[in-house]
């Protein structure tokens, strides 16, 4: 199901919630989910209403891209861009599971064409370019399409003089596209820089988990870096670090709170406050434009 389809389905049946993207619409509300934080069982319908934050322990569960967009964008304001961009298999990667199979099952599981959804939106009336990554799509890894969509997002934002908001999640670069994936790091970083050099604002929201080539490129090049509570954020995954140093990791290593303490992110903002917070923040980052207009 494409984003457009999803939104139009949502228009038709208001009671179908964002969580449904990953499951047939008619059973969605009946799904029970186990909280990763406290292990308690949660009712998906209610959970989505609470922005997928556990009412028992406050744990922030993963959101799908459509859910996230719904939670941030003013109703009806989101217009998807570049939805025609689809992944190919440039290296004919066939080790273990062929890449084409991985893509097919990711597509089926998520209802998305790729790991990032980009578009124009308004947040509290402020026009922005918005990108949201979806971990269900091959761990929201960055291949050619993710890189290209992010680069275009920054370019379109630069042309239209709009702020960029990106909600990240990623396991890193997509290895099945080899060096094409790695080079997306340089491409997206360069695009972000050009947008910044034009004096425009970029706010990044790092959600659980954001790692590797995404963290080490566009994700952290924002003017203000926000992390969600408890989100795991880093360059190298914790298992790799543990293997490398051959000792246990310190408690809380690579959590949002750890990143805050180590000076890497500006703020840890609970999901329930995120939208309002972005509106206030954008007020500052657009002050010059607002004065000029």
């Amino acid at each position, binding site marked *: 199901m494409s984003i457009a389809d999803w939104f139009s389905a949502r228009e038709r049946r208001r009671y179908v919630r964002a969580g449904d993207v990953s499951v047939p619409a008619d059973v969605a509300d009946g799904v029970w989910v186990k909280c990763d934080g406290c292990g308690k069982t949660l009712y998906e319908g209610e959970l989505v209403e609470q922005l997928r934050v556990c009412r028992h322990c406050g744990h922030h569960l993963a959101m799908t891209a459509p859910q996230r967009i719904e939670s941030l964008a003013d109703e009806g304001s989101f217009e998807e861009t570049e939805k*025609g*961009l*689809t*992944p*190919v298999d*440039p*290296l004919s*990667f*066939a*080790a*273990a*599971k062929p890449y084409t199979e991985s893509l097919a099952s990711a597509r089926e599981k998520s209802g998305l064409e790729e790991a990032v959804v980009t578009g124009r939106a308004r947040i509290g009336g402020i026009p922005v370019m918005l990108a949201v990554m979806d971990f269900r799509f091959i761990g929201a890894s960055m*291949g*050619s*399409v993710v*890189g*290209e969509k992010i*680069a275009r997002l920054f370019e379109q934002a630069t042309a239209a003089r709009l702020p960029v908001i990106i909600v990240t999640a990623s396991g890193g*670069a*997509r*290895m099945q*596209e*080899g*060096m*094409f*994936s*790695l*080079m*997306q*790091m*340089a*491409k997206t*970083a*360069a695009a*972000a*820089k*050009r947008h910044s*050099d034009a004096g425009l604002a970029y706010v990044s929201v790092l959600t659980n988990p954001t790692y*590797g*080539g995404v*963290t*080490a*490129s566009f*994700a*952290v*090049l924002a003017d203000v870096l926000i992390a969600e509570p408890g989100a795991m954020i*880093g*360059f*190298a995954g914790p298992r*790799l*670090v543990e293997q*490398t*140093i051959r000792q246990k*990791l*310190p408690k809380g*290593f*690579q959590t949002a709170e750890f990143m805050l303490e*180590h*000076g*890497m992110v500006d703020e840890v903002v609970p999901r329930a406050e995120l939208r309002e917070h972005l509106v206030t923040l954008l007020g500052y980052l657009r002050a010059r434009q607002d004065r000029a207009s």
Partner: protein
Amino acid sequence: MARRHIMEFERPLVELESKLAELRRLDLTGDPQLLLEVSALAEEIERLRRETYEHLDPWARVQISRHPERPKTDDYVTALFTDVIEIHGDRAYGDDEAIFAGFGTYGTRKLVILGHRKGTDTKSNVRRNFGSPHPEGYRKAMRAMRLADKFGLPIVTFLDTAGAYPGIEAEERGQALAIAESLALLSGVRVPVVVFGIGEGGSGGALAIGFGDRLIMLENAYYSVISPEMCSNILYKDPGQAKTAAECLKMTADELVAIGIADEVVREPLGGAHRDPAPVFEAVGAALARALDELVSQEGHELVERRYARLREIGEYGS
């Protein structure tokens, strides 16, 4: 000389060679049958040598790229440049010896030189963390990039790292942020950037100083989004399938030219650059001179636009 480092893929050849060497130590004058066998063995060895080295598979090349005697950044710096001045430190935390940064002159061309820096023995490898930088290394590199940009000095970089170091302190000091900032900065320097893959090109840790206006790969250097071992680990829950992974990743010099990532391959002597480094240095110098000749006439903003256009073209997708 230290004991020769034998790579996995050359083991059959080396075994035959040592058998032949043993035979040759015997007095065979009275044994024409054995003499014939020796001569046959020598021929067999010659055939195998060609077979082994002339058609190296990706995994064999990865082994060559990691060969301990393979010429390293320091060797290129010494061989190619005069008036070398190394700069140190990030002016905030420390000096990372896994990154070389400094000034050097090739012929009459004054340049800024960057490179990953592996050691030559245990002691220097520990100091240089086996060529895997910490964030302060990338921040030192950024200082060098800013100097190059400010003073109009072209940048040449030598890639040779298994990757940015995945340790606790590296994470604590912002490995990801340092790499990201380096990428952004390098994309915008208004001077030519010529990159040489001379050994290992491990992922983001190589890329942070590893893209520009030209990417020139040594024949047995690799450049990859992930190491073959880690790729194998993820795909097969077993690092033993690295050979298969190496083939799938299209990470060798010739493959990278074929898919449009690299511009050019510098050929190495049979068996690898460590067998005879001098002509490799010369070829790298010549390639550098050619690249600079093509690039130095361009204005800074032109270089930046073309560099961005190069990046923008990388990626394959349907639409």
